[in-house]
């Protein structure tokens, strides 16, 4: 089996995988990072969104081997297990931006990509348009949109569009 190595949440990791192994399988099954979800497996729902070298991508539509040498950030990489939540996570909690939580890791990783591209001052229209690739079956999106606007603002106060603690 081919070997693959990459940096995940700031840690060097490696493993032997079949060529057909998807990045999301590698993360969940090899690394046991189960925060990244599979909602559709057909590239539509965005539950699997992670960052590859700082840019959001659907990890169900990437091969692990395509990420050889890349820096991957998953939802687990945003905040230390025993520390405070990342401002975007905190905003989802505060604004009730989740119900079942299945879509939430992908929503948050996508939200950070919106901040990267569009900055900290986000209007509702921009957020809704930019969430095109993320589906939520519970919330009706309303509070997700509010949470992202608030989280983006909060990140701005920290003076950064920075995503992960890494």
């Amino acid at each position, binding site marked *: 089996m081919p070997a693959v190595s990459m940096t995940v949440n700031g840690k060097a990791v490696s493993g032997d995988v*079949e060529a057909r192994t998807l990045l999301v399988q590698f993360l969940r099954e090899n690394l046991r990072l189960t925060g990244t979800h599979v909602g559709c497996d057909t*590239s539509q729902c965005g539950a699997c969104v992670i960052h590859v070298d700082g840019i*959001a*991508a*659907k990890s169900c*539509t990437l091969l692990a081997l395509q990420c050889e040498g890349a820096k991957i950030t998953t939802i687990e990489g945003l905040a230390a297990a025993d520390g405070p939540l990342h401002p975007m996570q905190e905003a989802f909690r505060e604004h009730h931006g989740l119900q079942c939580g299945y879509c939430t890791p992908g929503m948050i990783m996508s939200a950070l990509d919106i901040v990267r591209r569009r900055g900290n001052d986000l209007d509702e229209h921009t957020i809704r348009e*930019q969430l095109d690739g993320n589906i939520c079956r519970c919330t009706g999106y309303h509070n997700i949109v509010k949470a992202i606007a608030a989280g983006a603002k909060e990140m701005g106060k920290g003076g950064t569009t920075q995503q992960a603690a890494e």
Partner: protein
Amino acid sequence: MYNFTFHRPTTVRQAAGLLARNPDAKLLAGGHSLIPVMKQRLASPAALVDLGLVEGIVGVELKGRSVSIGAMTRHADVANSPVLKEVMPALASVPGSIGDPQVRNRGTIGGSIANNDPNADYPAACLGLGATIITNKRRIAADDFFTGMFSTALEEGEIIVRVSFPVAKKAGYEKFKHPASGFALVGVFVSKRGPDIRVAVTGAGANGVFRVPSFEEALKKRFSPKSIEGLTIPASGMNADIHASAEYRAHLVGVLARRALVKATA
């Protein structure tokens, strides 16, 4: 998805060598058409040749009166290219309308054109601007490149390296987005470059992207939405599925062509 061997060349020449040596090999660009198709087992290549590390085939450059886009340039990077937004914003708007942000972060122009999905956006821009598709073997005019649904003039082992678009002073793209997939139910790209007038349609034709000579002829007198007011195209030859009938698609071609002309002449 069936298993395969995986290769990561760093030059176009190496990639071509790998294709030649591995029967039943396929190129992998952004993977955002190929991987879903492999998951459905509609494709099961024995080998994948990943273009991700190949040098010299990424970027948007202004070369004289043409814009040259490397095959591995991602949709987001074309959409946000400062030089392209300045010289031909209509072309930048095409990848800007593809799918969703995550798809635009991975999908590439080379992959989109090689795939020639009948509802894809880039084929309309290529045909609507008279682009030239440059491969490791030759240069192919867009008029000769798109040969039907999911089929192109590319030969076995041929690799798209770059696409060159002549800069048109007037150009516009209008798309009726499928609300679920983001693909073009119908999309129309119009352009005028000197006497060369083009109207190219994606999404509608049963054989993929096509030009509309009757509209182009009418626009010769005056390049304005008024010139094609009331003109229609026949429903025969249009695609029909659960999303839209052939008649509706034919109707949209006229509507979207006029809207694209409004943009192009604004």
